[in-house]
Structure formats: structure tokens, C-alpha cells
């Protein structure tokens, strides 16, 4: 029958050529037995023709008892593309470290084939498994199948967002704390804050095991937990010599690139003045067999990163320079309680914590959450002379 023929998509077909794997091929695979994916293809072709999007926000959608985890989506030409008139996304909380077994993936695939478009993102930018495109009447059923299989929804809206972490101690020798355990425990502890948005705006926590920061915590998390060590870099001189023998130019490619200016290579021996080491990871990254972080490990806690909306982009800045490994989780939970209380009291609607700190000043924020100022918190002390003294410091 003619209406069963797929509509031609010449512009998208062009993106099935070339060496990189094609998302168009993925949509077509799903479209073979799914009318929503077939209409998605048609709608996307229309966007490619018109050079504009065809989605809009819409009314409340979700699953019973949750205020988050579903992104409602409707298209603006539903008469032409009725199978994607409603095309909502479910954010499904990924297992920490994004580890799966083949069976776990098949379980997810089966659920999503039954209830939705058969299209996913592995993974969304906050880490969730994104199930892309379901009708409103399928949301609750999808949710129930997911929870029966041991999965749950992640956060969206003005909620605690799904925490994420790097691979950490599961497969990385540099991890200064157990990022996956931390991430999983935190996720379990804040199910309510994730599923029933309680905040002025979104709140993200991300954990990286070392300053390489593979989950970009410093750039994208309101609270960034980044592993670091206190004592000396562990050094294996025989392995250093091996790297040199294999042709690594240690003077140029390691010592000269050290931001602490604290490494010296005599041509036979490497010395590191660890007091001046900035814990940047460069030398360790270049010679993983020879150098390792020290044994007195823990994490730095930084606060306030966000994308540019509304007041400009921010990177997280140092809140607690070092917490020993064993105290990280308790410290973070205590800090979260105080930070959220302050945010609740002083934050404006849709004001991220980083923006609030900019508005009231870091010093007032520290007073509010009961932390002492530390020189590690600033790049340099103030250089503007307009100091507003506290009443109690003047006579």
C-alpha cells in the first residue's frame, strides 16, 4: 500500500555515506518495525529541508509519584507526523561507571522495543540512559517494566540530577578514591531529591578519581568531587629509565611541561620536588608505568560550575582543598545538607548555586554554610581596595 511506503529522505540518506557510524542508519533500523521512528525520520528530513526544528515543549507528562525523569516533547506538525505527535524521553539512571552485561543491555532493549521508539542515546550528557520517544500512555508501563528489571528513572528539572562518575578504581590506577561506590551510594541516598524536584533549579554532582577529570566534573557539576593525593608521587626509577631508553624526551616532554617547575632530569635520574608539585597529572599521564599518585589519597571538593545560561558560564572553584578518602562521602553529605539549606533560603527561582555564590559573594556563602576561608580557595587575594568590614571587626 502506498501509505506504507517510507517517505523519501534524500538529505538524510546523504548522511548514511562515509566512514563514521551513522545515526540515520540507526533511525532506519528502528523504523523497520516501529512507526514512531519512521515518522521521526520524516520529521527530521523536514527539519533538514526547512533548516529549523519542529519540536515544542508541552503539558505535564511523567510517571505517577515522580516529578522528573521524563522530558515531554510534541511536534508542531502532528497532522503530517502523527506517530511522533507525542515523543517523550525517559531518563533512566545508568549503573555507576556505565558498566553493563550483555543481558542487561538486552533487557533494556526488549523493554524499549515494547513501549517506545526503539531508539536510545547511550548516553545523555548527564550520564543517563536516554530512551528517546514514547507516547504519553506508554510512560507508566515503561516505568513499571524498568523497575521490575531493577532500573529506575534519573533526575530532570529542578532536582538533584543523576550523579555520574569516571571508571575509577574499576579500571584506572590513578583513581584516588572509589568513585563508583561514592556515586552509587549518593544516588541511592538522594532518590527523593532526584525524583521529586525540591530545589530552585537543577543540582549536579559528578566525581572523577583524579585531576584528569574524565567526567568533566569541574566544568559541569554544581558540586565537583575530584580525587587528589597529598604525599609524594610514587616513582619507579627503573621504569623511568625504560621510558628514556624507549626514546621519550623526558627533559622536553615531561620536565619542561611541568607547571610546578619541580622536576629535573639529569639524563640518568629524575627528581621531583614534591612540595611544589601541583598534582596536575601530566608526568604521570606520560609515564604511567613509572609514576603513580601517592598513597595519602582523598578528594578536593569544588563548587559552582554551570553552562552560560543565565549569568555566564562558570567553572567550579575550590571549597574544600582535601578530604581524606575515608571521609569523602560523609563530608559531601554534610556539605550538601548545608548548601541546600542556604540555597533554599537565599536562592532565587532558576538560580544555580554558582550564580548565587557570585551574587552574595563567596565569603557570605562560607559564613552561611559554616566553612572557614582558606587561601586554596582563591587564585589570588583581592586586589580591589573596597573592603566591607563586618560590624564585629570594627569598634
Amino acid at each position: 500500500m502506498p501509505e506504507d511506503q517510507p517517505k523519501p529522505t534524500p538529505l538524510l540518506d546523504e548522511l548514511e555515506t562515509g566512514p563514521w557510524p551513522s545515526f540515520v542508519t540507526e533511525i532506519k533500523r528502528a523504523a523497520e518495525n516501529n512507526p514512531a521512528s519512521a515518522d521521526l525520520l520524516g520529521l527530521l528530513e523536514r527539519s533538514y529541508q526547512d533548516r529549523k526544528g519542529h519540536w515544542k515543549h508541552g503539558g505535564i507528562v511523567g510517571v505517577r509519584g515522580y516529578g522528573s525523569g521524563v522530558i515531554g516533547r510534541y511536534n508542531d506538525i502532528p497532522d503530517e507526523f502523527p506517530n511522533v505527535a507525542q515523543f517523550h524521553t525517559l531518563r533512566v539512571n545508568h549503573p555507576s561507571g556505565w558498566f553493563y552485561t550483555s543481558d542487561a543491555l538486552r533487557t533494556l532493549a526488549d523493554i524499549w522495543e515494547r513501549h517506545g521508539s526503539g531508539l536510545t542515546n547511550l548516553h545523555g550528557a548527564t550520564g543517563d540512559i536516554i530512551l528517546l520517544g514514547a507516547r504519553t500512555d506508554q510512560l507508566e508501563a515503561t516505568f513499571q517494566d524498568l523497575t521490575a528489571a531493577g532500573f529506575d528513572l534519573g533526575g530532570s528539572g529542578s532536582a538533584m540530577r543523576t550523579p555520574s562518575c569516571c571508571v575509577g578504581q574499576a579500571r584506572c590506577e590513578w583513581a584516588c578514591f572509589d568513585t563508583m561506590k561514592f556515586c552509587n551510594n549518593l544516588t541511592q541516598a538522594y532518590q527523593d531529591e532526584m525524583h521529586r524536584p525540591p530545589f530552585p533549579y537543577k543540582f549536579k554532582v559528578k566525581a572523577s578519581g583524579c585531576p584528569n577529570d574524565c567526567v568533566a566534573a569541574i566544568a559541569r557539576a554544581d558540586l565537583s568531587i575530584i580525587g587528589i593525593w597529598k604525599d609524594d608521587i610514587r616513582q619507579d626509577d627503573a621504569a623511568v629509565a625504560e621510558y628514556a631508553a624507549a626514546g621519550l624526551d623526558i627533559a622536553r616532554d615531561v620536565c619542561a611541561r611541568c607547571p610546578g617547575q619541580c622536576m629535573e632530569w639529569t639524563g640518568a635520574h629524575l627528581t621531583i620536588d614534591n612540595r611544589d608539585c601541583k598534582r596536575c597529572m601530566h608526568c604521570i599521564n606520560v609515564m604511567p608505568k613509572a609514576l603513580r599518585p601517592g598513597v595519602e589519597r582523598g578528594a578536593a571538593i569544588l563548587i559552582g560550575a554551570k553552562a552560560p545560561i543565565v549569568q555566564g558560564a562558570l567553572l567550579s572553584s575550590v571549597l574544600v582543598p582535601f578530604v581524606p578518602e575515608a571521609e569523602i562521602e560523609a563530608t559531601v553529605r554534610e556539605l550538601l545538607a548545608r548548601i541546600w539549606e542556604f540555597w533554599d533560603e537565599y536562592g532565587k527561582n532558576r538560580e544555580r548555586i554558582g550564580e548565587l555564590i557570585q551574587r552574595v559573594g563567596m565569603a557570605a556563602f562560607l559564613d552561611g554554610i559554616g566553612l572557614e576561608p582558606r587561601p586554596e580557595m582563591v587564585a589570588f587575594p583581592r586586589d580591589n581596595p573596597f573592603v566591607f568590614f563586618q560590624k564585629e571587626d570594627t569598634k
Partner: protein
Amino acid sequence: MTRITDIGPPHYEKFLHPLIKRNYGHWLYHETLAPGVLCHVAESGERIYTVRAGSPRLLSVSTIRRFADLADQYSGGYLRFTSRHNIEFLLDNPANIEPLKRALNEAGFPVGGTNNSISNVVHTQGWIHCHSAATDASGIVKALMDRLHPHFTREDLPAKLRVAVACCVNMCGAVHCSDIAILGIHRKPPQIRHDTLRKACEIPTLIASCPTGAIRPAVVDGKRTVDVIEEQCMYCSNCFTVCAAMQMNDPENDGLSIWVGGKVSNARSEPKFSKLAIPFLPNNPPRWPEVVSAVANIVDVYARHARRFERLGEWTERVGWPRFFELTGIPFTRYHIDDFRYAGLSYARSTHMRLRP
């Protein structure tokens, strides 16, 4: 049946390779055996091999099942994904590395993305799913990686090069700290459909949605509606989110901007934001040739001039931004000079200049 809620994600331990479980927290070092192939050695002497491949992020259930089959065949059913949308198979038997690589290449998923390569492109939803999108994301990534994929499968750059695409200023994903970022932009305030606005939208909600307070109540042709103070609008689409009568999409004026020199990692220099390289390029699907060649040019210039282990932003800091514009041939315009809050911090406040005769 009782309804199950708030159980959180499955515990990761269920999904860990037994070799990883045995050596958890006891890794000694790693080596790169080939681009995309890592070998992690534990204190016990055991080795886990990782084979990393690029994926389009948007995956159908049939491809997911194919990955599951490959995992069953080569890695005991164990696999994971990285924060940059790569897939990784975890093998205890090195004899399976080459057959798995062949199988992945045959299935169209290139192996690579490690060390000094261009890893997968972090990107957002674009026209596939988002109402704010000034452009598509998946299509740009596909066109770009078709051109740049040799840098994915080979580790042939001075340092890591991280590329990201975001389809609007909301920047889902850390686009603002990438070596090269492609950002979809709207350039005009919303076009207001005064005739339908009253029916479609709640005016107080609409006014409250604007982060800069640019929306005011107004009366047009006797109908209650709103107007926008144009100078105050930053084209964020929040108003369109709550009210479809505030049309943001504009094929002629929407387009892309290119940002360079950001980084996330603390290695060597501190993390930094990406800086504006090209203020505007047209939206030109399906292959965005202007964007692809602009990015390829920046990659080429960087690859030719940067020193070993120097990220793009570290190179520009060493040689200076005038040299970046000179070498890439990108024109420097008024838009490159910041005019937002604290813009003065980005002005050159010394006479340190590398002048050339």
C-alpha cells in the same frame, strides 16, 4: 502487584567483569597496545584489555543487541560506555583483540579514541528531540567525523583534541570547555505571534520565564499580548519553552559559532573556557561544509604548529592569539571582543606583544 519506586540504578557490581572485581582498586599501570586498545595491569599481575570504539550515541535496539552479541562472543558479555559516548569491550583474553577489532570495523564502528587522538564528539539532541535547537547536532557530528576520523583511529596529534557540539546556548554537555566547540546560535529575539499568543500561553508565566526580564506585557490591536526589549534578549529560548507563540527558529539567522582552546583536565595548565574563533557560520544541512572545513582547518594548523603534549589552548597561550588568527586565516572582528560583565578582564593589559615587521 505493588508498584516499585525509588530503587535507584542497579548496583554496578552486578555488571563487573570477574577479573575487574578481583583487582578492583589494585591497578598498577596501563599501556596502550594500539589506538583504541588499552591494557591495564593489576598488582596481582592480571591484565584486562579494553577495546574502545566510536558510536553515533543515538543507537537503535538492534545495534544494542549487536553490541551484546559481540560482547558475548569476545568479552564474556562484559562491556561499558565512556563519558564521550564510546563503547568499550573488556577482555581477559588478548587473543580476542584482533577478531573483535575486525568485527567492529566490519560492523562500521571504528576502533580508536585513546590518548592523543580526537575522541568521540560529545553532543546534544538538536532537531532529533529538542525544542531549543538552533541546529542539528547528530548531523554535524557525522559530517565532521567523516572528515576527521583518521585522527580518531590514529594517535597522530600533539595532544588530546576534544570536540563538542551543542545546539543552543544551554550547552547540555561541557561544550564551553572543549578544544574545539561548535555551538548553535539564534541571533534574533523571538518573533511573537500576537494573534495566537493569548490563547496558547499564560502571560504571567511567559513574562517570568525570561532570565533577563526582557518580556513586557503589551496590547497589540486591542489584544493582550507581550513585547520583547530587543537589546535585553540573549536568544535563550526559555520563552519558547513555555509559549509556542514566541517563535525562535529562523532558518536565515540561526547558525553556528566555533569556539577553541578550552580544556577540562588539570594536566599541565588549569582548566579553561573555550574562546570565540568564528562568530557565525550558516546552517547548511545535510553536511554543513562551512563548519566542517573551518574545524578541519583549525585542527590542521594546530597539528602543524603545537608542541608535543600541548593542548590547543596551551598552544594559543604560548604563541598568542594574534598568531592563531594569522595562521588559521580567520578574520578577527568586533564580535571577538567581550562586552558582557567583567569584559575588561579579557582586554590586553600590558605591552607584551609579539609584533612582526
